[in-house]
């Protein structure tokens, strides 16, 4: 049973890491815009393109 002396602190430490990670994410605003984040991924590709002059309607 001596192994518990090691295992318990390790298990608790890992859990605490997860908790700290969550609190950090909460603080840095990762949960502020769940709707936007879900949709944003669909649009990023064109966002990076350079602006190109265009006539209307689109050709």
């Amino acid at each position: 049973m001596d192994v518990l002396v090691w295992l318990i602190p390790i298990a608790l430490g890992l859990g605490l890491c997860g908790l700290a990670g969550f609190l950090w994410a909460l603080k840095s605003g990762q949960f502020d815009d769940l709707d936007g984040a879900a949709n944003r991924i669909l649009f990023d590709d064109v966002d990076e393109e350079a602006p190109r002059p265009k006539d209307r309607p689109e050709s």
Partner: protein
Amino acid sequence: MRQTPVAVSTAGETDLGSPPAQADPSAQPAPPLSPAASAALETNGRCRHCGAPSPGLAFCCAGCEAAWDLVSGLGLDAYYRRRTIDPDQRLLRPESEESAVDWASWVRDAGDDTAEASLLVEGLHCAACVWLIESVLARQPGVVTARVNMTSRRLRLAWRPAETAPERLVSVVSRLGYRLVPYDAGCLERGGNREEAELLRAMAVAGFAAGNVMLFSVSIWAGHAEGMGPGTRTFFHWISALIALPAIAWAGRPFFRAAWAALAARHVTMDVPIAVGVLLTTAMSLQQTIVGGEHAYFDAAIGLLFFLLIGRYLDRRARGQARSAAEHLLALSATAVTVLADDGGRCVLPPTRVSPGMRVLAAAGERIAVDGRITAGVSSIDTSLIDGESTPKPAFPGTLVFAGTINQSAPLTIEVTAAGEATLLAEIGRQVELAGQHRGRYVVLADRVARLYAPVVHSAALLTFILWWAVIGVDWQPAMMNAVAVLIITCPCALGLAVPVVQVVASGRLLRRGILIKSPTALERLAQVDAIVFDKTGTLTEGRPRLLGVGTFDRGVLAAAAALASASRHPLARALVQACEEAGIGVRTASGVRELPGQGLELDTGHGMVRLGSAQFCGVADGPDDGRAEMWFSRAGAPAIRFAFEDVLRADAQAVADDLRRRGLPIVLLSGDRRRPVLNCARALDIERWDAELRPSEKLQRLRAMAEAGQRVLMVGDGLNDAPALAAAHASMSPSTAIDISQTAADVVFQGAKLAPVREALGVARRARGLVRQNLALSLGYNLLAVPLAVGGQVTPLVAAIVMSTSSILVIANALRLNRMRA
């Protein structure tokens, strides 16, 4: 959560149900076209930019054409294929005039030579709009970041002041048709959000601790069967204590604070038995751990906290969402005042900094922000928010105007007699506050249950202690343990979840349909309603005039009249133009139209005068008097034609009224409008009890009288004249088009052009009440069944854990049924 479908399809320019035969614009050969020529390509009759009907034309107005040019000029026209137009949102039509904003008070210095501002965005339809705004702004020189939060519909904008100015950036976005209004980020987010974040953090800590303590508890329970030595057991108890004690102390603060506040105010809420239960359980477990006892209940204490924090957080978040949406609507309507200086210069001030004696300018179409007397200009004023009257009143120098009314046709100069807190608007605001105070005294069902529950539970625990100690004669320590076990088993875990979970499911369901529940007790009060009072203008009706009998007029006449009318901002003229557009008659604005404020429009065609306006103006001596708003149209050599207008009922008003009556709710119509239109409306909807020409205070009296007669009234209204009545009613609803103060006074704000939300909200509220009662019965019954076990000393930590989690799960599952019920 708002559903936001993203159209990534490539067929059809907009997702407005255009016929599949509609050619993909990207497949067309693309010569630069004038609007008239490109009209040939448009077969769906909708404006390319805003998607509104524009028969025969590619764009409905010059603003939309400019916006389209801007978007495609930046190479962002993928936007039009990707977006999904949300019919409940404002049209994406750029406004011709922009209101000036005093930027100095909104811009923050963000260091590194950048400045930052937070803005509310109105007109977001879907994720493509977010993308468009961000991309357009990112392509402007000097912009550092532009990020739109889609959930809260807010834009955070940072730029280098040396290279650009906020006015320029905002004007780019408003040219696309969105409205941007700066807001004080700190002010909106203070309070509510901070509390929500604290609950979430407490929940995270409690969840972590509960999970870990439960691991040790499971080992201990297994150890009871497998013969774990007392040394290991005590060691595990100590580790559990090490995790649970700080977690309980920290995560339990919201409950301890609320319980203490309730006790200090000498009443009992649900927080009191929770706090007592958690603290006693923890203390007893600690004592058992110290003496090396067999049972410690740390898992029960922290698990209980975790479950309750979930309930509390969900409850808070659902209301926070509704509140922030309502705040958003309010902030958008806050306008700045243009003050005329003595030297003729102009400056824009917030309404709070205007003082009596100043002269302010009210542009056409703008809401007047002060009380005052007109010194220059002739116009008409929409006073419906003050007195509920639907037809505008003429205004000329000397006329008194009030804050909240809308100046309709021409600019006015107004000498301020009262501003800010001294206006009639603010006075009514105080009435509202006074009338709404009774709401603060309403006690939620859960707390009413707690008032009965807490004494019963605590005396049961006391009796158990006395039974074991004095009657059976054991030591005080085991007697105490059994008493605390009674408290643990009856600690209202499921009871704490029973109400919030139902509230969350119900308000989530309503939020998806554009109905915002603002007050925590609104659902409970809505469910008790047994009579409904409606306002007329803007509530039962659409609140704007519509041309009657469009089909009876000659199309040529309509087109000719609309050519004049489109030069004016007068509501009747606009209604005429709109009627033509809906009938598919193309409207070309005639050039050279002169507007004579208070009289009408005229155009010299060379073949004689064409006039559109009042009967007198068109040379008509006596027209029919049916109480309707009217406009006359006269051309040389032809008899004058009368266009009659009426504020038409909302499309589903009849259906909703019938349905409410079927549910046994009597309907009363109370309006500030004149008798004639109110009578028409009451007849159309078969409403027997109605009254017209009521002042705000009279409406309030009617409602008080109904309340004294024992009725629980739901008031539905939008005008300023309704605000005191809204606050005084047992429950109240207001459309999102209502004036700020009415939205503030109402419990529930609903969006959209239909009246169905009233029915929906009532239905969901009644269902929710049923579920809350079931849940309370379920959790109480479950807990009380286990009481004999506890009194008998048979509740081990394992039994406590099982009872607690199953009752919580039962309650949650029962609440989720609401999503599938028909309202």
